C-alpha cells in the first residue's frame, strides 16, 4: 500500500485528500477543505494540509507522494502535478464506479468530462470565459443575502416559487438580486432561481459533450444539495438520459483523483528505480 495525498487548489477553496492505494484499489483515509476568501492561498494550503493529515491520522513523513491539481504550482512541497480534468475523472471513477462522466462544477468553470471505465478522458466541454452563473457568482450572491455557503443548498430546496435569473454578468447580477430582495422575493426563491439557471447551463454542457448514463457531480459546487437537485430537474426538463450521482465526498473528487494518480506514479517510479 502506498500513502499519497492530493491537493486541489481551486479559485475559491483548497481541498485535500489522503489515500492508501494498492493493487486492490484505493481507500480514502481523510479529507479536508478550506475556503480562501481573501486569505493568502499558501496559508490556506498549509491549514488544509495539516487538517487532512489529522483526519487521516498519519504524519507527513509517511506520505510517499504529494500530488497537486488545479492551481497547484504554489504548493512547494508537491512531487507532481496532474491536470484537473485527469484528476476529476479518476476521482469520479473512484467515488462512483459506474460513472462514465464527471461534471466538475468549480468557482469559475464547469467542465463536462466524458470518461472510460479506466478513468481516461475521452472528450470534454467547458463553460466560456464569462463568470455568469459560476460558483464564484453564487458565493457573491449568498454573501449579499447574508446566507453562508453551507446553508445555500438546504434553503434552495425549500423554495416555493423560484425566481429565474437570466444569464447576466456575474458581478452586475448582484444588483438584480438586490432588486429581487427589495421586491420582497424570498431568499429561498432567489437561490433556487440561480440554481436553476446554473443547472440549465450545466445540462446543456452535458448534452454538448454527448454524455449519457451515470454522471458524478464533482468540484466545490457538488456539495450544494440545492444545485444538484436543480440539475436533476433541468436534466428531466431537457429530456436527457442522464442520472446524476452524488457522493458525500464529491467536492473532493479532484484531490482524491490527484492522490490516486500520485500513488500510481509513485509505484511506477519505484519499479523503474
Amino acid at each position, binding site marked *: 500500500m502506498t500513502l499519497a495525498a492530493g491537493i486541489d487548489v481551486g479559485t475559491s477553496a483548497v481541498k485535500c485528500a489522503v489515500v492508501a492505494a494498492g493493487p486492490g484499489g484505493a481507500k480514502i483515509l481523510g479529507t479536508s477543505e478550506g475556503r480562501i476568501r481573501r486569505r493568502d492561498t499558501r496559508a490556506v494550503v498549509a491549514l488544509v494540509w495539516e487538517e487532512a493529515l489529522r483526519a487521516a491520522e498519519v504524519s507527513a513523513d509517511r506520505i510517499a507522494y504529494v500530488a497537486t491539481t488545479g492551481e497547484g504550482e504554489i504548493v512547494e512541497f508537491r512531487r507532481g502535478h496532474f491536470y484537473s480534468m485527469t484528476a476529476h475523472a479518476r476521482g469520479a471513477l473512484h467515488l462512483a464506479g459506474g460513472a462514465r462522466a464527471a461534471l466538475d462544477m468549480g468557482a469559475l468553470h464547469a467542465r463536462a468530462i466524458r470518461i472510460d471505465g479506466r478513468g481516461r478522458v475521452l472528450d470534454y466541454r467547458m463553460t466560456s470565459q464569462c463568470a455568469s452563473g459560476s460558483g464564484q457568482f453564487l458565493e457573491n450572491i449568498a454573501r449579499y443575502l447574508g*446566507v453562508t455557503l453551507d446553508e445555500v443548498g438546504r434553503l434552495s430546496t425549500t423554495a416555493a416559487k423560484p425566481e429565474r435569473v437570466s444569464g447576466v*454578468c456575474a458581478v452586475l447580477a448582484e*444588483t438584480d438580486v438586490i432588486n429581487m430582495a427589495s*421586491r420582497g422575493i424570498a431568499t429561498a426563491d432567489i437561490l433556487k432561481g440561480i440554481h436553476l439557471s446554473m443547472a440549465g447551463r450545466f445540462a446543456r454542457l452535458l448534452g454538448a459533450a454527448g454524455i449519457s448514463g451515470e454522471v458524478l457531480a464533482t468540484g466545490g459546487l457538488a456539495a450544494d444539495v440545492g444545485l444538484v437537485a436543480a440539475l436533476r430537474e433541468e436534466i428531466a426538463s431537457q429530456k436527457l438520459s442522464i442520472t446524476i450521482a452524488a457522493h458525500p465526498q464529491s467536492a473532493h473528487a479532484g484531490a482524491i483523483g490527484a492522490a490516486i494518480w500520485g500513488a500510481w506514479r509513485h509505484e511506477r517510479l519505484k519499479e523503474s528505480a
Partner: protein
Amino acid sequence: MKCAVGIDLGSTTTKAVALDPLGRILGRGITNSRNNYDAACAIAQNEALIDARFTLVRRALATPAGAGAESFVDHLTRCFRLEQHLDQLAQLREATLGAAERLQGSGGAPGLRGTVEGIFDSMKEGAGQAFARGAKKRSDFFRDLAGGTYLSLAEKAAPAHGIPFETLAGLFDKSILAVENRTPEENFRRHIDRALDRALRESPPADRREESRLRSVVAATAGEDLEVELTVGTGYGRARLPFPKEQIRFEILCHGLGAHTLFPGTATVLDIGGQDTKAIQIDDAGIVTSFQMNDRCAAGCGRYLGYIADELNLGLHELGPLAQTATRSVKISSTCTVFAGAEIRDRLTMGQKREDILLGLHRAIILRAMALLARSGGIRSEFTFTGGVAKNPAAVDALAGLVRENYGEVPMNVSADSIFTGALGAALFARRAADATASSAPGAAS
C-alpha cells in the same frame, strides 16, 4: 430652512444632495447601496442633512471649506464621524453576539461568544485610528471599514480559539445586513454633543469666550429645522425607486444637468458609475442631445475596480494612488471581472507587482469608455468626467492621456463632487419643481 433634495440610487452607492432655497449646495450624503432601497435612500438623505448642518456651522463661523490647515469645523466633523462609527459598531456588536448566541444554542462552536466579544473589543479600541487627523480611510462606508477589520481579526482569532474562520465570517455577513438596513433618525443631535466635547478637548479654543461662541453656534445649528420640501430620485432601478412617479427623473438627464451646473461650458460628459458607463452629449443649456451606454457587463465600469479592490483586500480609495506608483503596465488577458480577479491572484502568486497590474486594469476600463465616447459622437470641448470613477486619480490620468492621443488638447473638467453629479441634477429638478409649486400657490412666501 427648506431644502430640495436629489437622490441618485446607484448600484454600488446611493448619493443625495440637499440644496438651500437659493439653489446652493447645502449638503452631500453618500452610503453604500443595499438590498433595501428605502433604507439606502433614507440613509443617503439623512447623511446629506447631517452634512448640511455642518455647512451651516461653517457659514456661521465663516470658515472657508478646504482651506489648507484643518479648521475647527473639519475637526468637529471628524469627531462626529467617529461617534457615529462607534455607535454603529455597538449595534453591530449586539447583532453579531445575538447571532453567535443562536449558533451556540444550536450546538455550534462553543466559546463563540467570547471570541466575538474579543474581536469587537479590539475593533472599538482601534476605531479612533481611522478617524485621526490626516488618516487615510480605506472606505467611507461602515460596512467596508468594519468588515475589513473584523475579517482580519477573525483570521487571527479563529485558530487561537479553535473556531472555523468561515463561522466567524458568516456571523458578520448575517449581522451587517441587519445593522445597515436600520433607517436612522437624523442623528445629528444624538452625536454632536459628544463630538463637540471631544473636539474642544483635542484642540482647545483660545479662551472661554471663543469656546462659548463655538458651543452656541453648534447648538443653534443642531436646533435648526431642516425641512425637506421635495425629493427627486434618479438612478439605477428607477422603476423601483421609493418615490412617486412624478418625482423620478431619467438619470441621463440628471447627469447632463448636473455636469452643466458644475461646469457650464460642458459639451461632452463621460460618467463612469458602478454598473454603467455613459457617454453623453449636451447642448449649452445642459439638455441631453445624444448618449450611449455600455452593455450589462462589469468589465467596462466601476464595479470592475470595486471587485478587484475586494479581491486584493484594498479599499476603493487605495486603488488609484497605488496604480500611480507603477513602473510598468501589466495587461490582464481576461475580460470578465471575475476571471480577471482569479488571474490577478495567480499573477501576484507568481510575483508580479500589484501596482503594475492595477495600472493595466485602469487603462483597460478607460479604453472601453473611449469606444463608447466615439460611438456617442466623440469628445467635444469642454469635456467633463463624472461618476464615482472620476474620483480615482489613475483613471483620470489614463483618460487624460487617451483623450490627448485621440482628440488633441481638449479642456477636461473633473470635480471633487463628481460622484454627486447625478444627485445634483436631481436636486436641481427638485428645486425647480418646489419653486414652481411655491410661486403658483396662493399667498406664497417662504
